């Protein structure tokens, strides 16, 4: 990641596919892990931890969407609804059966995967914009169902309160403790995705994305792999929904409406379709940018405006700047932040020479 490789010639397939081509890559990872596990929670204020927590949850959900959209090429606008499926499954299990999070979390994911396969069925016949509309219908149907079936939603309010997750009597109740809880699942999701995309399944996904007829001709069962992509993607979404549920302490379908699906699409498009690192960048970008813009404006704006005026100016300008920056980054690099990062990296690879 941050190292310069030279004279490295990969002579085996295993060597070519390795996650860490060089020992230094491994050590960089260890260093990053140490920073996040030991240093960050000790040094950083709880407020920043809470932002990191939101980013961790977003990473899990965005990775799931990127597996579907970025790697397999199937568009989905129903990601928010799959999150709500996971959220309500986990909340119902946690409240009615008193199950711990390590059971409700995979259960929520699996239920979302099941629903995801059903919503993904149209992908077998339709592609592109048509599929987008089909998944949009899925989003609306799931929202409506949760809103109108008290057995799922737990009453007119459509919200189910859950206790904080606990493990062996240790309760993850503060932002600092939730940080470790969420970090664990974010790392798990990252590692799982990294390994998925370099496996047989991941390569099949990419083949389906690039040209599904060609993929079928070389022997890939595209029905199976399209549905598998929907299942895996929805599993991630479900887990993301469960994490939101435990983080908020409540499952509420209004937290997973269509705007959430759009936000997650924005994350992976800005970060970079078909890239794990890009997904992480995207999740950070979309979560952090409005906050950074606001804090910046609070500092600068107080020189020009009164507090009451500033409230209006900040919220209006923030939307404008946010949208402008998204357009700017996409014009500078249509393939997303990940490509931008790689360009910068390859520039410095030969620095100070231009080539």
């Amino acid at each position: 990641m941050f190292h310069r490789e030279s004279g490295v010639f990969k002579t085996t397939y295993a060597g070519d596919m390795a996650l860490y081509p060089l020992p230094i890559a491994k050590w960089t990872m260890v260093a990053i892990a140490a920073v996040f596990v030991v240093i960050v929670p000790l040094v950083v204020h709880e407020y920043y931890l809470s932002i990191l927590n939101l980013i961790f949850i977003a990473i899990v959900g965005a990775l799931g969407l990127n597996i579907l959209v970025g790697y397999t090429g199937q568009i989905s606008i129903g990601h928010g609804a799959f999150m709500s499926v996971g959220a309500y499954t986990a909340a119902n299990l946690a409240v009615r059966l008193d199950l711990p999070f390590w059971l409700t979390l995979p259960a929520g994911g699996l239920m979302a995967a099941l629903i995801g396969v059903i919503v993904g069925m149209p992908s077998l016949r339709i592609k592109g914009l048509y599929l987008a509309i089909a998944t949009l219908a899925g989003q609306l149907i799931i929202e409506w169902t949760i809103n109108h079936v008290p057995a799922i939603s737990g009453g007119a309010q459509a919200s189910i309160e859950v206790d904080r997750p606990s493990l062996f009597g240790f309760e993850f109740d503060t932002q600092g403790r939730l940080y470790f809880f969420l970090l664990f699942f974010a790392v798990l999701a990252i590692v799982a995705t990294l390994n998925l995309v370099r496996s047989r399944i991941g390569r099949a996904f990419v083949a389906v994305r690039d040209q599904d007829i060609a993929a079928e001709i070389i022997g890939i069962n595209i029905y199976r792999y399209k549905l598998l992509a929907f299942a895996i993607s929805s599993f991630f979404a479900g887990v993301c929904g469960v994490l939101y549920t435990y983080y908020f302490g409540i499952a509420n379908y209004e937290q997973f409406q269509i705007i959430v699906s759009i936000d997650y699409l924005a994350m992976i498009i800005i970060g970079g379709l078909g890239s794990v690192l890009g997904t992480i960048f995207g999740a950070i970008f979309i979560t952090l940018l409005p906050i950074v813009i606001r804090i910046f404006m609070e500092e600068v704006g107080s020189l020009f405006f009164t507090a009451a005026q500033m409230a209006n100016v900040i919220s209006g300008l923030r939307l404008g700047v946010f949208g402008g920056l998204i357009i700017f980054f996409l014009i500078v690099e249509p393939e997303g932040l990940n490509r931008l990062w790689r360009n910068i990296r390859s520039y410095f690879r030969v620095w100070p020479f231009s080539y």
Partner: protein
Amino acid sequence: MTRFVKSWLGVAATTATLALGGGQVFAQDIVFGLQCDRTGPTANVGTVLCPGYQDYIALVNSKGGVEGHKIKVLEIDHEYKVPPAIEAHERFKKEGAVLEGLYGTPQTAALNKKLEEDKMLGTSPGFGTASAADGKRYPYTFPIAASYWSQAGAAVEFAKEKLGGKLKGKKIAYIFYDNPAGKEPLPILEDLAKAEGFEMRTFAVPAPGLEMGAQVLDITARFKPDFIIAHLFGRAPSVFIKDLKGKGFPLSKVVGLVWASSEADIIAAGGMGVAEGYNTIQFAGVGKDYPVIRDIEAMYKTQGKTPPKEMDSTVLYNRGVLVAALHVEALRNAIKANGGKVPTSEQVKNGMEAVKGFTLGGFVPPMEITPADHEGGGWVQIWTVKGGKLVKTKDWFQGFRPVIQKHLADDAANAKKS
């Protein structure tokens, strides 16, 4: 310099900018957090309500603050999204806010637990669940305004009065926005229908609520009710008023709950003249004929400015003023109890639970907030469109309070069981 070091310098620089840019707050100021939606789907409310809040705090500060302490409002716009609301709460906590104003039902739901864990007082006027009125169940969440349950009770009471004191055999239509908030009053209405002997039928309007021709036709041509209770949000109320008018239904037999009752809703339906007779439920005073509103206008005059145009939308603006006034009153109580020193959030919570007999000349209902009742009694007023403006037709009252209290108790018992 290696690339490694460079990259990390970049990361460090970003972190440093973040860490420094925390918004400086002067030590003696007391910080209030205010969540708002000025740019999201409910911006039509936020852009008027939040200036009302800001103006009242500015008024208090211009008069020397609360017991000598100035207040600084930290407002954060969350665009009606939930994660930014969490971030806003953490930010308020970091800045040492003693209380915060919440905005939005899903946001309130997501923060209920955090408020309790962080011992931070949060108010949710007109948002959130009716059960949050139960102070024992949600010790740090304060609706401080009539919940949808109380509003439904008041609406039925008003209908009863309009229909000659008896509801037996009458027909009431309930048209609602098809979301949890819209469905919330249903149990109260069903109970009252049984107890009072009227026939109730419900008509759901799906989001975004811009098309309800079918429902209105169903109500006016088939069900033919004696009275209509409308619980709509956003642009839906104006569409509803217009459609009803088109079908010739008398608007004097319609009452709108609090989010279907602003001047903007009525004007969007074609103007005040069109909606003659339309009844609205209000949890704050309407109009400009209150000392506090005159004070704000005077404040702008002494600063040499014209009062902002938001003040003309009195329904929503006044609600913002009401929330701010109750916040300040809670703080005042807390400072007094604390011997003039800056109180903690927990002490402000106790201060809020001591709010009583604070009416600002009829602007605020005669509410009494207690540790058990965070709603303050569920008081509302009825204002009716008459001769081009909203006129008060029924002063502060509580509708079917015992029924509401019974539901609150049942709900708390159910929650304990599960």
